[in-house]
């Protein structure tokens, strides 16, 4: 790792770092290792958002949460995909807040389905939204408002099953609008292309809801493709300033098998292969044991996968 260590003991920033922008006494964002960041900032029972809308999905960070065997997590994400399937199957999760849960273009998330349909490895509570509602909930969280408002859920059965979707009357026009409570994760985890050595973070391409999810969170972990001397960010690009970011860790390829625009393409073959790996409990357990639980880090995961899967090479 060519990361520069800021030389502060982890205990020195474990509490203050990563508290959100609402805490004005925030110290510098810390460039650290993913293992340390997860170890210090993700706690059993937390609400965690590992956001990423098909692009820049923080797979490496999700694996580290599995390795460190966090339990009883509430996971939030608009589009839970393979990394949430892995976290659910590995027994880390008790509740999912989401709006679309599938393997895009391939089919079901079998571990998610097994948890919902059969309660394996544990029952999974669902708080289910539509994308527009979750986006409004994150934006409300980032805005420090109690709820988000949208012209949404009209004609849908979702409000009948999710008591966190309510309807309010516009005080000006009388129009009936949907309201969802602000989503404020304990920890938001994202992957981005770059950070500079101070911890300013730059991402581009499909940027999803990451900015809102970071600004809504109490603590933040960002993995990046590379830490650079100068970001050279165009003025209107998505930059998260260092003082709203908690920990930054360089993990090259950390969004694999999703993609990082400008670095590598989506590995569609892995998404297709996941269907067979995850379909049965025993093949899933063998996979997670061999490639995640018994590997030291994401590089180790990639090496172990290269031994068995030609498409990774």
């Amino acid at each position: 790792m060519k990361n520069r260590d800021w030389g502060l003991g982890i205990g020195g920033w474990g509490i203050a770092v990563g508290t959100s922008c609402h805490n004005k006494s925030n110290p510098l964002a810390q460039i650290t290792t993913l293992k340390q960041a997860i170890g210090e900032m993700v706690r059993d029972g937390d609400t965690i958002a590992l956001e990423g809308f098909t692009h820049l999905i923080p797979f490496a960070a999700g694996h580290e949460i599995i390795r460190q065997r966090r339990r009883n997590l509430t996971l939030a994400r608009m589009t839970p995909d393979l990394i949430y399937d892995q976290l659910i199957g590995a027994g880390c999760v008790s509740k999912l807040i989401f709006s679309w849960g599938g393997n895009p273009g391939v089919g079901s998330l079998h571990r998610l389905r097994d948890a919902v349909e059969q309660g394996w490895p544990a029952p999974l509570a669902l708080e289910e939204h539509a994308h527009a509602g979750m986006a409004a909930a994150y934006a409300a969280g980032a805005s420090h408002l109690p709820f988000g408002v949208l012209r949404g859920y009209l004609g849908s059965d979702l409000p009948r099953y999710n008591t966190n979707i309510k309807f309010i009357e516009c005080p000006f026009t009388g129009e009936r609008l949907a309201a969802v409570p602000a989503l404020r994760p304990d920890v938001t985890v994202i992957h981005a292309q770059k950070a500079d050595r101070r911890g300013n973070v730059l991402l581009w391409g499909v940027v999803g809801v990451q900015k809102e999810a970071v600004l809504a969170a109490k603590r933040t972990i960002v993995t990046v493709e590379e830490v650079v001397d100068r970001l050279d960010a165009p003025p209107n690009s998505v930059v998260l300033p260092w003082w709203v970011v908690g920990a930054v860790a360089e993990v090259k390829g950390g969004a694999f098998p999703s993609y990082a625009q400008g670095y590598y393409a989506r590995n569609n073959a892995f998404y297709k292969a996941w269907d067979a790996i995850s379909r049965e409990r025993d093949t899933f357990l063998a996979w997670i044991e061999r490639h995640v639980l018994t590997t030291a880090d994401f590089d180790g995961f990639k090496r172990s996968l290269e031994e068995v899967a030609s498409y990774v090479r």
Partner: protein
Amino acid sequence: MSDNGYTADEMMTIASARMIRNGAVLFVGIGLPSAAANLARLTHAPDTVLIYESGTIGAKPPVLPLSIGDGELSETADAVVSIPEIFAYYLQGGRVDLGFLGAAQIDRFANINTTVIGDYRKPSTRLPGAGGAPEIAASSKEVLITLRQNKRAFVKKLDFVTSGGHMEGGDSRERMRLPGKGPTAVITDLGILTPDPVTKELTLTSLHPGVAVEKAVESTGWPLQIAAHVATTDPPTANELAILRDLYARTARAHAGNGN
């Protein structure tokens, strides 16, 4: 492959593509809608604006994306905006002409289910869920739906209404204040159904070549309304078939490797 030299799925995709007016702003779902939208863009509707819910506006992907946020979309888009922006400013803002959706189940009023089969709290099959569909179905000026027609999909009563079509028929959609005018056509592998102007019940108005009306009736889980005059869909042209097959072949090649 039928005797005519094309498959029912190809006919469905081509019939769907023809419904897209050149220049329309289209909010497109993944799968069959995406294939049809790109076929339209590559044939009669080059100025169609494809919006995917990943925030890619004006995407011109060289191959069909596997997910709604593949690199092919952002690299070829006129603009890439955030998720809150695409849903709040563009869709809710009333800037989308046509929403184009797939579904697991549909009912006679073109309400759709993509959430569960069975009871919500103890489902026999947990489906992916809503995604952007409820608001696409509500706020687009009009909506097209495409799915294969059979009794598992065309059901008398949905297990879950994920996205509203014409609700309980008649003026019920209007009374519930859904902003857009709702589904205007359902394109299947057998034919085309359109809502009755008054009752809003889906009515078979066109059959694809070689499909008997009985087949459409047998493949529907409610007593299917048949138009007084049922048209026959024009068969695929050689050009449409060649462009669609080329698109699928390029896509298969691109997705076979590691995507690089």
